[in-house]
């Protein structure tokens, strides 16, 4: 018997998903575990696989739609089966729900435009035929706009997806762009009026970042510990390692070494490797380091598992692979969940120090600044030094000041004598 397939919850935190692409079409045979569609969640583009065997009888939602979990997206059953009851059921459900539930793909497809052969273009009866059709946006997701509008949009950095078209089939025409940029946009240059802000719809990743960071900063009592360290020994160690690795073509970065040192320090001060769980405190017995990676329009935090037990070269490889995946939006949820401690590095931008926002339920995040070449006093002499500042944001519910400070002192001492990690 045919059944309605709802959008699955593809990650524990998924509140909505965008159907990026159907990989099966109506009429296709479907086996259990066949790929049905790709769905973009707050975290990644996920595979939506079938739990059922049969024929994909109906696709209810066109590509590009953003939906909540369990919203009907397809009907799977036997070939030729009557699905009118199910369609009715879907229709009545969507009618009772909000208008955001999409119509079926076929219903919302634009009516085919009458072909206008050149000879009929000027026929008097064609005047009415080619009169503007109902102004509804096509379901294909393609933005219809005139060449002029595309040029203006490029010049003014307007995202045409945010502009409503008033022409035939919802085509965006010049007047839509003019009114979009404000009623006096044309005269703006001459009269020096200010343009209104450019409005862009927040991506689902952006909204996730907003929600989680607001929650963190509002509910987690942050405090901050900054320490200044001599980075020369670690920097020299890195050079030595890279010299050793040269033949293999691999490289380790200072950040990879910092991950390793932080992981080792967490073993020495395990109170920091913890989570506040309201009525309990969880002291983690694994050291899984979340690494903040900037991606287009946001950031992601892939996790290096058991960083305390991995070699620096292995950490370097994992960081490289995971960062690459993050930038391509291919990170799987399990690759970025359940970290126990975070590291964020803005040193490459010349930032000397900063205070990061904790990534709950982790209890701390270490913010890494840039290397500063500056004079330091050694005994009675002023010598050239290489310094770096680290700031740890701590959740005071779990980590008291003294505990945090103990961690930072241990961290500093390990950074300054990396060999002690061998103890």
């Amino acid at each position, binding site marked *: 018997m045919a059944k309605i397939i709802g959008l699955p919850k593809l990650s524990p935190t998924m509140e909505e998903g965008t159907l990026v692409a159907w990989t099966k079409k109506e009429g296709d045979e479907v086996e259990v575990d066949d790929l049905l569609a790709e769905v973009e969640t707050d975290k990644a583009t996920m595979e939506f696989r079938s739990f059922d065997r049969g024929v994909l009888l109906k696709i209810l939602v066109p590509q590009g739609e953003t939906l909540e979990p369990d919203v009907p997206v397809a009907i799977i059953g036997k070939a030729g089966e009557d699905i009118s009851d199910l369609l009715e059921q879907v229709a009545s459900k969507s009618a009772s729900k909000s208008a955001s539930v999409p119509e079926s793909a076929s219903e919302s497809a634009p009516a085919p435009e009458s072909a206008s052969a050149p000879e*009929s*273009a*000027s026929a008097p009866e064609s005047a009415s035929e080619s009169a503007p059709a109902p102004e509804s946006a096509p379901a294909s997701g393609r933005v219809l706009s005139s*060449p*002029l509008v595309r040029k203006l949009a490029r010049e003014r950095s307007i995202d045409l997806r945010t502009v409503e078209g008033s022409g035939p089939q919802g085509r965006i025409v010049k*007047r839509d762009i003019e009114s979009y940029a404000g009623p006096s946009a044309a005269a703006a240059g001459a009269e020096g009026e200010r343009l209104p802000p450019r409005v862009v719809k927040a991506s689902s990743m952006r909204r996730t970042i907003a929600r989680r960071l607001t929650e963190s900063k509002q509910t987690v009592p942050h405090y901050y510990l900054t320490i200044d360290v001599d980075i020369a020994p670690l920097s020299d160690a890195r050079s030595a390692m890279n010299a050793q690795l040269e033949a293999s073509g691999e490289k380790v970065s200072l950040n990879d070494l910092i991950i390793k040192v932080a992981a080792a320090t967490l073993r020495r001060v395990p109170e920091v490797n913890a989570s506040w769980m309201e009525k309990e405190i969880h002291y983690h017995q694994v050291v899984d380091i979340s690494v903040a990676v900037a991606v287009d329009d946001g950031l992601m935090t892939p996790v290096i598992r058991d960083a305390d037990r991995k070699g620096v070269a292995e950490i370097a490889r994992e960081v490289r692979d995971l960062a690459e995946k993050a930038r391509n939006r291919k990170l799987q949820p399990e690759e970025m969940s359940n970290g126990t401690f975070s590291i964020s590095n803005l040193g490459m931008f010349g930032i000397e120090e900063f205070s990061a926002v904790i990534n709950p339920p982790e209890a701390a995040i270490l913010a890494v600044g840039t290397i500063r070449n500056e004079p330091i006093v050694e005994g009675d002499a002023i010598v050239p030094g290489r310094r770096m500042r680290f700031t740890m944001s701590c959740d005071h519910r779990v980590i008291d000041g003294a505990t945090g400070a103990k961690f930072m002192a241990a961290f500093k001492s390990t950074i300054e004598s990396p060999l002690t990690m061998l103890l």
Partner: protein
Amino acid sequence: MREIRYRDALREAMLEEMERDESVFLMGEEVGHYQGAYKVSEGLLDKFGERRVIDTPIAEGGFAGVGIGAAMVGLRPIIEFMTWNFSFVAFDQIISNAAKIHPMSAGAVRVPIVFRGPNGAAKQVAAQHSHSCAPFYTNIPGLYVIQPSTPRDAKGLLKSAIRSDNPVVFLEGETLYGVKGEVPDEGVEELVPIGESRLARAGGHCTIVSWGRPYYTVMAAAEKLSAEGIECEVIDPRTLRPLDTSLMVESVKKTNRCVVVHEHWPYGGPGAEIVDRLQREAFDYLDAPLERVSSLDVPMPYALNLEDTVLPTEDRVIDAVKRVSYVK
């Protein structure tokens, strides 16, 4: 400036050029003793005599060929077709000889000839005698094709055509012969250059390109549209080959839309050529598809009400302008 009729402007052009240059002569059916089927050559026989104003038998292929031969040996013939519909029996002479001798003689022999006469529908001359011939001749490399809309352009362009060293197809209009318009005073010589379009009406909302008889339909439509607040910019190409699109492109960059209005049928021809060039040369400035208003794609009916329906009408021009302007 004085106002004269289109046919008088043409006669003045021929008269002035025949006075200026002895090698210029006129040949065709009824051009002499009858004073021209449409009285365009009125008085020329008396002035220049039978050696230079020559009545021919009803044999277009023959006298077109004689004219081409005369041009090859240094004369400057003006060959009048009683209408361009009759040029079809001289098609081979025009296409295979007039247009080809210069390139096929490797530039050794020139053919400075003007073929002229009324073109397009008149009034109830039916399917065989209502052809708009521009598409046939504009397709031929080696020919120049001119179709003036106003008396001033008719005079200035015919003078340039007679002076041209190349074969020129000069398309007039039976229904235009009586149209009056400003022309420079006698004694003031004006040569309108071949291959230059003209801004006929300025406006910022919609560009209209038109020539020949529909030019007047367009000017009337533009007045009505102006009363509704839509200002049309009208451009008359005047020469259809070589085609000058510079003014049209500049105008479309300003108005972002264009309607091309012509009497010839919609399949191909200069109307389609203009649309093709504008979509490439002004692509980034178009806010709407280019539209055309033309004669309907049928042989011309005899019945007057049907003829009026087939030819481009003011209403169709107004509808097209509103469509490309997204005004209902």
